[in-house]
């Protein structure tokens, strides 16, 4: 059979195919960059004051709610006011240079800008209080914060990840009295325990939990 294409045409076609492939790769790359979360996962995030959850939670044993005081009542868990920090730090480490911004906020009216680690898109309406009330523990989404000298994000926070639990909450829920327990691990019979808790806490069925309107408004 005679050659269908002249070699020069063939070269052109190969070139076009290669170009298309490169363009597709570039487009995929651009898409990833464009939709990337603003803060990388599993990477500690620098903060104006190098606040250590490991020290405050792990070593000193502070309860989550001491600082994140609205976690049980509001959508937002709450960032402590500077006055909360100074309940201890008006006495402790007052001269430490790394704590200087804590006092500058008052004396020089220079606010501290924390870098946000868990950031959801604006069209997602996540509510902390209902998750806490239904037995979703802090560490389920935030990881072992008590072991983080500088905090980082462990969950992807993509919709796929949210749906993982909304489709099968029994795999993640824990008793309410263990919600703030950092060391809680799912027991061997988690599925059995989870099903019991889902019933006891009146967690809605998968259909309702995966309604678009549950998270998007």
């Amino acid at each position, binding site marked *: 059979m005679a050659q269908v294409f002249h070699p020069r045409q063939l070269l052109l076609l190969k070139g076009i195919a290669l170009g298309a492939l490169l363009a597709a790769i570039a487009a995929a790359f651009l898409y990833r960059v*464009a939709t990337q979360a603003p803060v990388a996962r599993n990477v500690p995030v620098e903060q104006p004051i190098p606040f250590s959850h490991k020290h405050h939670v792990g070593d000193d044993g502070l309860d989550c709610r001491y600082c994140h005081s609205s976690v049980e009542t509001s959508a937002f868990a709450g960032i402590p006011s*500077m006055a909360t920090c100074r309940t201890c730090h008006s006495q402790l480490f007052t001269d430490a240079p790394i704590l200087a911004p804590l006092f500058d906020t008052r004396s020089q009216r220079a606010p501290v800008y924390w*870098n*946000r680690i868990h950031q959801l898109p604006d069209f997602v309406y996540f509510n902390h209080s209902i998750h806490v009330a239904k037995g979703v523990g802090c560490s389920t989404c935030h990881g072992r914060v008590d072991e983080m000298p500088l905090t980082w994000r462990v969950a992807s926070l993509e919709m796929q990840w949210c749906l993982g639990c909304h489709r099968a909450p029994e795999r993640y829920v824990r008793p309410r009295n263990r919600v703030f327990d950092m060391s809680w691990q799912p027991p061997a019979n988690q599925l059995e325990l989870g099903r019991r808790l889902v019933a006891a806490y009146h967690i809605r069925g998968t259909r309702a939990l995966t309604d678009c309107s549950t998270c998007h408004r």
Partner: protein
Amino acid sequence: MSPRQPRREFDFSGVPERSRREFLKLMGASIALASGCSRELPERIVPYEDMPEQLAATKSLYFATALSLDGYGSGVLVESAMGRPIKVEGNPNHPASLGATDVFSQAAVLTLWDPDRSQTVLRQGVLSTWDAFRAALTARRSRFASQGGAGLHILTGSVTSPTLAAQLHRLLDKYPEARWHQYQPINRDNVYAGTRLAFGETREPRYDFTRARTVLSLDADFLRSMPGHVRYARDFNGARRPGETPSANNRLYAIESSPTLTGAKADHCRRLRASQIDRVARALAQRLGIAVESPTSVPIEAGWLDACAFDLLTRHGESLILVGERQPAHVHALAHLANERLGNVGTTVQYTNPVLAEPIDQLDSLRQLSAAMAAGEVQELLILGVNPLYATPADLEFARHLQRVPFSVHLGLYRDETAMRSLWHIPAAHELEAWSDTRAYDGSATIQQPLIAPLYGGRSPHEVLAVLAGEFEQDGHAIVRALWQGELGGDDFEHTWKTSLHNGVVPDSAFTAEQVTARLPALPPLRDADSSELEIVFSPDPHVHDGVYTNNAWLRELPKPLTELTWDNAVLMSPESGRRRGLANEDVVEIEYRGRRVRAPVWLLPGHPDESLTLQFGYGRTAGGRIAPGAGFNAYALQTSAAPSFDGGARVHPLGTRYPLASAQMHNRMEGRDLARMLPLSAVIQRTAQGAQPSKHERKLLYPPFASPTYAWGMSINLDACVGCKACTIACQAENNIPVVGKDQVQRGREMHWIRVDRYFEGSDAHPRVHFQPVPCMHCERAPCEVVCPVEASVHDSEGLNVQVYNRCVGTRFCSNNCPYKVRRFNFLQYSQDVPSLNAQRNPDVTVRMRGVMEKCSYCLQRIAAAKIASEKEGRRIRDGEVVTACQAACPTEAIVFGDLNDPASRVRIAKTSPLDYVLLEELNTLPRTSYLPAVENPHPDLQET
């Protein structure tokens, strides 16, 4: 009226042509921009220094205060989201509100955040400072103080504020030669003069519609524009719930000179020229047994008057005659006398002390000021919160006389006409930014508390007056509190003060009814019934009022009741009057009246009296923000102090040009379909007795019925209660971050309102029946929009809500094309502008939509979600009435009921079990969750309306 062709949807005439090379360059740039912009930027969190009390982030707090219109306050609860006032709700404790609001209260937050508000002190139009102004004023004080205040004049609007009145009285005591003038363009002059004629002293009439079974309105729009109208609308409709107690239904007779919502809701409405209402009032008074000479010719058939008089007389003590602010004093006085004869005083009407602190004749007061300015007697003029250069009768020539005043000061929210021509301009604090107080229609006082510190360093009138009086410079809080300390006094003051602030009403502050004895006033001779004379009627614009809201985009784009016009005003006339002159909608005419001329586009309005023109104030501005100037025409330019309300002798000259107007409804008739239903009361009683009837449309369903096992949300809209005021539309706009689109886009049919109020005329153009029908998304169980969406952006959730997923939407608009109710709205352009101060108004619980996305009513999903979370935390179901949609909350007449259809005791379920319940376009089998109850008319058996 023929349907008007909408503008071409895509108009490329303004798009410059580009070469291919340029196009590629632009494309490259936009791709680079798109990939750069869509990336989510890292956020930062700024913690509080000290957490304010009670303030948990993202949880809204509500504060009770009041918003005033023409001086009269209405109680509101303002939602503050992390310190930002974002939404106004009615205050259930307040007698003028009972939990509902009007359109003006709803729009107040937009005025607060308006980026066009005046932001700096100006001296002769040049930036200055408050300190400089204070120094200048102090320098002037030595002059007027030495002369006992001679030459010092203060102009305010209608003052009901006890604090402001006390400050002014103190100032006048200190400087007896100083003068306080009051002029509000929409004022109570005729009402107060009427009580003076009838009773010999100034009184405030207050009506009780719950007890009125026959109501006669003589040019009084009590459902939409009188002080207390929100309460009146509620009470009137409370006495009109035929489904519940049909025989107790009231009957409304209305005679009006310009079409209003009251006339539209009346069982019997007659449209007359304003000057003829006097005649009718006399003829009726005579039928009621009052010794007046009956006019020889009455422009209404005798049978109508007889029926009306019969109803009034048989409902002794349960009838009511009320007269509008436009009508002259003696008509008011006749009505007072008639009410007394009918035994209504003390039951349906009461007379209290006037709500205005100083109930003077305001027109006369303005005339005196104008004369004093012309004579050069005014050395210092303080203009507090009004705009007399724009909003005063033209013959007083305020602008010219102001030039003779050496020291003029204007305190206002905008750099308006007066601000530009005064020596000093001081930015005013908005009502939501300052301490003050106000009284409602019944005298109830509310202490207005600020929701936020003044955004632009604005001052309240109290603070300016304190400086003028040379008092210690005090903040508004100290001034207002000091007055109430004196009023309420006692050891318990702190408690009373806090209770008053918390509840939004000062306890026991409503005025008590006074004893009155009416006498027959001396009646002026009747004007000739010269029917060839063209009359002119002045009226506030339904939405921008006297011009205070002209820069409020929500109110500008809100279609006006009856005309459905947006963004402009037009001179209204009857279709017949237009036909006689060969005029059609949008034709420009020159109106000539007493030697003054104004050019205006024409709008032919069915139900308008013949040979009469309605001119609405508020447009034709030359300053006052970015959107205020350049639209409509200025009706004040024709208003004279001799006849500020209405007059004959106008002439209309067609100019042969056209001015495009943007109407939100292109078609006025139902064309034989039964969209907005209306039944006579007898039919309602019959149908209620029969019980539910099977629908004439067979429900053929191919698929199993939709199941909502947990909650089944639904809505019922009572068309009998709906008065067409559109408070729902604007409440929805505020709650759901709905953008405004501008006149050009409205002309293309692209307005974004999630709930619209359709208006239909039925019958002749001269005497049409008017129907109102609020139309939100129907949340069809078989939603036609869902099956055509290629990306499943339009889907059902398990509770029966038809939800729109903005992030999936790619903008095909198939859903909108397939929606038989036309409730879907598309963001053709980037309507949600990124303006910092407007962003602060946005509801944080609702996504702001971008260009290319479809949107529509969500049944206030965010409110359902909040209630669901609250109930689930307490381990219970959502209670009936716990979810109140924004439209439902605002509605003055409780026409909208929302709730769970799975709850057999819910109000919405009960409403839907009525045999009168119906859905729109039932034959399409869409099974809407929104259904309607028909309007009910209660005609007099002897009267056959057209």
